[in-house]
């Protein structure tokens, strides 16, 4: 499998009153982890739903594995974890997973065996015979996660896979995702948590208000964003530090976290000058490091603070 696994071309989707996705084009390369990033209500889920053929685009085309057939005809090769989690509450966990596997087109016996293996791996094998409704929310999410990848798909679409999970379970699922990507699978996941995306993604697309604002390999995106960035943290005299960072001849932009900050230097400014100014200010420097821009700062810069808090309006109407 070479080339792009998912190809979205000039796709637009309108709902009553607003445009959720506007002329979006993107290509998900085969293998690796692709992050679809954006603030709440940006159109991430709408895009994923269109890729999954749950919604039909008003304009544009979507091709999967180079073919323009509907995703459900390729359902054996695609796994999907929707943003809105849903399981049959009265079904037993084991039966449920077998059914999801069968619905994807794999044989019953193999579904049973794989379900068993995954339940074991994610540490919920004891719950196989329990009803879904008896499980905690986190466990239900694991069950649904298993349901998405049970049939060993080539392409896995995960819509906000880590939301609502505690750090331990988050870690377990992240490990699975990374492992799948290493074995050559393609993973497309959406999130609005940048730290996570930064650690995992090979390739990102950022969309805001339905429009694509960033697209590219993570390393390229960072390089293109350019500028020199300095990560710093200090222990005292925050007001004086703020004064130094407010000097527009030195600093172009500050992502201020109180006791720490990520700073983009003004063009032509020298990091040494900033360091000197901070030392003079006696702010008790704990860290001063010239770094690449973080995804978070790129995101904020590209999307803008106002769009980051755009109202979530992902009403689904056909």
């Amino acid at each position, binding site marked *: 499998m070479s080339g792009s696994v998912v190809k979205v071309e000039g796709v637009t989707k309108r709902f009553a009153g607003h445009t959720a996705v506007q002329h979006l084009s993107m290509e998900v390369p085969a293998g690796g982890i692709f992050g679809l990033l954006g603030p709440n209500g940006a159109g991430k889920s709408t895009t994923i*739903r269109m890729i*999954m*053929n*749950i*919604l039909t685009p008003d304009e544009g085309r979507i091709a999967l594995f180079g073919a323009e057939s509907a*995703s*459900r005809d390729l*359902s054996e090769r*695609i796994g*999907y974890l*929707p943003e*809105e*989690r*849903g*399981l*049959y*509450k*009265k*079904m037993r966990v084991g*039966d449920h997973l077998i*059914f*999801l596997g*069968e*619905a*994807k*087109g794999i*044989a*019953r016996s193999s579904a049973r065996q794989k379900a068993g293996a995954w339940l074991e791996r994610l540490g919920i094998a004891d719950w196989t015979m329990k009803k879904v409704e008896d499980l905690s929310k986190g466990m239900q999410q694991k069950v*649904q996660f298993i*349901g*998405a990848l049970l049939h060993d798909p080539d392409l896995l679409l995960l819509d906000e896979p880590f939301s609502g999970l505690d750090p331990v379970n988050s870690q377990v699922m992240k490990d699975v995702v990374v492992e799948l990507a290493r074995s050559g699978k393609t993973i497309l996941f959406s999130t609005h948590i940048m730290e996570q995306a930064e650690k995992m993604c090979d390739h990102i697309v950022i969309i805001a208000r339905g429009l694509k604002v960033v697209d590219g390999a993570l390393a390229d995106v960072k390089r293109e964003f350019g500028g020199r960035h300095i990560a710093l943290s200090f222990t005292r005299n925050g007001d004086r530090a703020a004064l130094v960072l407010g000097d527009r001849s030195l600093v172009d932009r500050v992502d201020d976290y109180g006791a720490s900050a990520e700073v983009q230097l003004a063009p032509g400014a020298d990091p040494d000058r900033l360091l000197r100014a901070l030392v003079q200010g006696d702010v008790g420097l704990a860290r001063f490091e010239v770094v690449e821009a973080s995804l978070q700062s790129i995101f904020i810069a590209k999307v803008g603070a106002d769009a980051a808090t755009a109202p979530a309006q992902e*009403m*689904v*109407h*056909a």
Partner: protein
Amino acid sequence: MRKVIAVIRREFIERVRTRAFVISTILFPLLMTMFTVLPAILLRRASGTKHVAVVEGVEGTFGIRATEALLASRRRDTSAPIPFEVERFAAVGRVDAVRDSILSRTGLSRKRQVADGFDGVLVLTEETLVSGKIQYYGTNVGSIAEMRRLEGILQPVVQRERLERLGVDPGVVLKAVGRVDLITQKVAEGKLTGQSGEATFGLAYGMVFILYLTLMIYGSQVMTSVVEEKSSRIIEVLASSLRPFELMLGKVVGVGLVGLFQLSIWAATALYLGSFGASFMGRMGGDPGDAAAAAASAGGPSFLAAISPALVVIFLVLFILGFLFYAAMFAAVGSMCSTVQDTQQVMMPVTLPIMLGIMTIFALVNDPNGTLGRVITFIPFWAPFALPVRYSITPLPLGEVLASIAMMVLSVIAVAWVAGRVYRVGILSYGKKASFRDMARWIRTA
């Protein structure tokens, strides 16, 4: 196809496994049995020996004859106690006084407070012979069966007395006015089927009732299940894995099989309790007065014996087609709603024809080959009711049967196609409940 089977299996197993299924499967025949057996038992129980006083205000043999007739009366069930014990009181000229004195002892015999108490007082006067009105004061006047029995016993006695007074030989008249009875037997294809009229009605009623019940219970289960998949959002995963039509088909067939499964459990139970069934059908068909008799005679024509293999086939074929027809509509209606509450309003157009269907039986039984019967045999909403009922009552030409079935098959395909289009859009539409105008748009554009 494998995916459809997976959906069918899930629907079937998850449903049959529920406590509700087990309970309803057991409870329904139990209730039916109670309805059939209990009245028979109650009727038998109520028919202990009644102690009756005959107050005789007429000269001559009238009182004696009435007494003898009461004493001679027997139940059909010979093992039951005799119905009446009688004591005569001559009271010519002082009827009221005697009656009142006896009434004071009436209604007490059961409590054994007065050893010679009475359950009823029968007053015979000259007036009786003229008007035919006999005064009866009793504790059991509410029992229609009991009163009919009394009337039946006394009528020939009164008639005989009248005839004799007119100087006519009662023997001659009795011969002349001998009762006329229709012994009904169904003829089909030139052969006697041994099926009585009562059994015919019972059978038709049974078939229609089962169809009605299944459509209402399992049809609406299809609808609820569609809504639940929507509200739990599992539909997103399903819709991305299966074609909506596969999903709908699997669901309708799966739920339908649960209905058939339950039906076959009940059929087995009915066969087992066949004798009770016969008495029930006797009760349904006969007038209340005959109920006790019909209930007592277990040897009567069983409605089960009246079922021919051809009828079973026709019933099952129409049952399945009818279920598919209505269940597809229920699925479409379910897909238009986001919550179970919403369905209450939009399910009317589906449930109304089903309710009308059960009502057609009365017209069909009266006139199976009338215009109404012939027409609705070719309307898909009611053909599943009409065809088996008509076939069970009267022989139908094979052509008409096949034409009706063909019409039904085509209708099922058409409804499935339309419902599939509504369903395809509906299952992924959230927010407000879709209107029928929305539905029309989905059908056109989907």
